[in-house]
């Protein structure tokens, strides 16, 4: 890649979001800039607003105030939102595969409708991605027939099929049995090494150490600490970070 990387592919400025008419504050004046090609891991206790921030980036949640700019597009009109969403892939904790479609059709659907690719083209993209995530033989299976790890790998392939510039992962391994976590992390690691921009909410510290350029610790709707993995694990600045780490690192 010769072209220069965008130093601000995602730019979040004073983002606020609350639920139940302001009674629950999920994001409290959060600002954040993410450069292209970096892998960012977000950690933090449950309910600290990690998912909400990720979901605001592709507008699954509508912010109360603040601006979000993705690849130079300010999220405002409906067209902008759909345009941004095609550039941002998202992987959910609960996989959210389409259970009425085969694995292959799961990968084809959005390519055909949104990217308007020909059937043959979409199919070759899909097959290549299924090989990449290691389950080419399951193309004709239905999601219900796959294990959790296989389903999550299909979900990753489905998001990649749109050839997004950015991938968002919201606790992709939390719903998995322990023996399946590695197969999903391996796929994510491979993506990280290919240089795709990645924002992942994950408490897999091994993955954070190996793949992340940057770790963000969130608590009570705010960003508490924003640093590199080495620094975070060796000398966390904040007391709250230290307490949280001691809980998850045993």
């Amino acid at each position: 890649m010769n072209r220069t990387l965008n130093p601000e592919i995602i730019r979040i400025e004073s983002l606020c979001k609350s639920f139940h008419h302001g009674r629950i504050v999920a994001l409290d004046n959060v600002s954040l800039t993410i450069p292209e090609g970096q892998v960012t891991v977000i950690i933090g206790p449950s309910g600290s607003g990690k998912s909400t921030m990720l979901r605001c980036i592709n507008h699954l949640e509508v912010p109360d105030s603040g601006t979000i700019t993705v690849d130079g597009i300010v999220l405002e009109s409906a067209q902008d939102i759909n345009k941004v969403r095609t550039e941002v892939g998202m992987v959910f904790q609960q996989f959210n595969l389409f259970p009425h479609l085969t694995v292959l059709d799961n990968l084809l659907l959005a390519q055909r409708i949104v990217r308007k690719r020909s059937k043959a083209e979409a199919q070759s993209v899909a097959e290549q991605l299924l090989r990449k995530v290691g389950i080419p033989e399951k193309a004709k299976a239905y999601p219900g027939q796959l294990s959790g790890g296989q389903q999550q790998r299909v979900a990753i392939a489905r998001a990649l099929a749109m050839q997004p510039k950015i991938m968002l992962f919201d606790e992709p391994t939390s719903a998995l049995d322990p023996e399946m976590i590695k197969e999903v992390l391996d796929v994510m690691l491979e993506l990280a090494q290919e240089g795709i921009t990645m924002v992942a909410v994950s408490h897999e510290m091994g993955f954070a150490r190996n793949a992340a350029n940057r770790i963000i610790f969130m608590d009570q709707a705010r960003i508490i600490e924003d640093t590199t993995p080495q620094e975070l694990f060796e000398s966390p600045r904040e007391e709250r970070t230290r307490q949280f780490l001691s809980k998850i690192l045993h």
Partner: protein
Amino acid sequence: MAYADYDNGNEPLSNGWRDWRFMLILAGAALILVSLALPFFSQRISSAKVSFSDGSTITSHYSTLVQGLNLTMSKSPVDAKLDAVDAILTPVSHRRSGYGWMIAILQRPSALRRHLSLVLCLMVPLLAAAAGIGLTIRSQRTPVGLARGWVPAAINIGWGALLGLFLAWCHHFDFSFTLRAQYASGFAPGVGLWGAALGAALIFAGAFSFRRALHENVLDWWALVFVVALTIWLLIRFKPFPYVEIWKFVEDGIVVTLRIVTTSFGLILLVSLLGGLGRISRSRVIYFISSLYVELIRGIPLLVQLLFIWYALPQMFDVLGGLLMSLSPNLQAQGQWLIDLRLSPFTAAVFGLTFCYGAYGSEIFRAGISSIHRGQMEAARSLGMNYFQSMRHVILPQAVRVILPPIGNEFVALLKDSSLVSVLAVSDLTRRGREYMARTFLSFDTWIMVALCYLVLTLFSSRAVEFIESKTRFER
């Protein structure tokens, strides 16, 4: 794979063809094949003299089996009652076996038209024998020793064969049990018929004893549809007066009913979809309008709605038209058009049913769509699909499986409630029944016939819905 779900797939379900149940079935099949070559009916009616109360008589000659309706319906003199029927029985010399009758009828095209039903009735035992043999042969090739799909076929064709033989015997004496009572000995079934009946019973019993190995319901409710349809047919044939006439009279009413129901059902689906989407809409206005529609319409009886559309709506058109005309001279034409506007009975009926059932359907669609997990919509949207694309390709195909059973029930209810449109001068099945009753005062026969017609339609629809449902299931 299909065998894994019974008995852990390990234990064989039969001991090969030497299993006593297969022996029973094979014996039954052999018995049927042989019996059809033995004498079935030893006598036939060669001529009959019908006497009437005014002393006149009519004599008819029959070259073969009597044609069902002719004997009792031969042109009776006006105002005379049928007194007695004297039939002359002749022994049948050749071709009196089951095969013989079939060949004799099939060889003559003129006879075929009149006696096709006899051929069909005699075919069923043959089919039963084929099903029994098929079951035995196919079972030898399966790992568990039993061909699963063939068991229900053999059971159902088995009892169907018994019914077929009974009906074949009825052909023998003009479908009239009075005649049979007079000549009881002459119409006694021949040995072939008894043999074939025993064979059919053996096949039924043998196949039925496999039923327990299958753990599934074999005699399904499709049989009920068949039985009710058969009842109608039997009524028409056994008691041509008045049932043939009633049938001819209400026939076109059935077509009208079906046209109304299918037209409105198509529109109902559309209204329900829009109403259902409205009920989950984030827009306050759309939500309010669709909720108001649903709440209001569900609170008014369908009959009142229909009466309103038929009697009150034209008045409203008049008032509105007058209002338009008085507002501005430019609107004269439009006002006159509104005053002249009259809905046809058919349109009014479809309109009323759609309006009412659309409200119930909206609730079904709302429940179905909201039963699909929120993550599905989010996943679709996150891939860049817009709201309608996501609905069309992701949410609705899944919701259909939830919606289908209650919507199927709605269809059946609609079919029944469509009888209410008879108040709108629509000549549907119910109205035709009322018209016939007003002419003849045959209330019992008329309403039995109408009820049976509705029953066939509703039972058939229920089965069809179940079938579609079973085809749209998928693994979660």
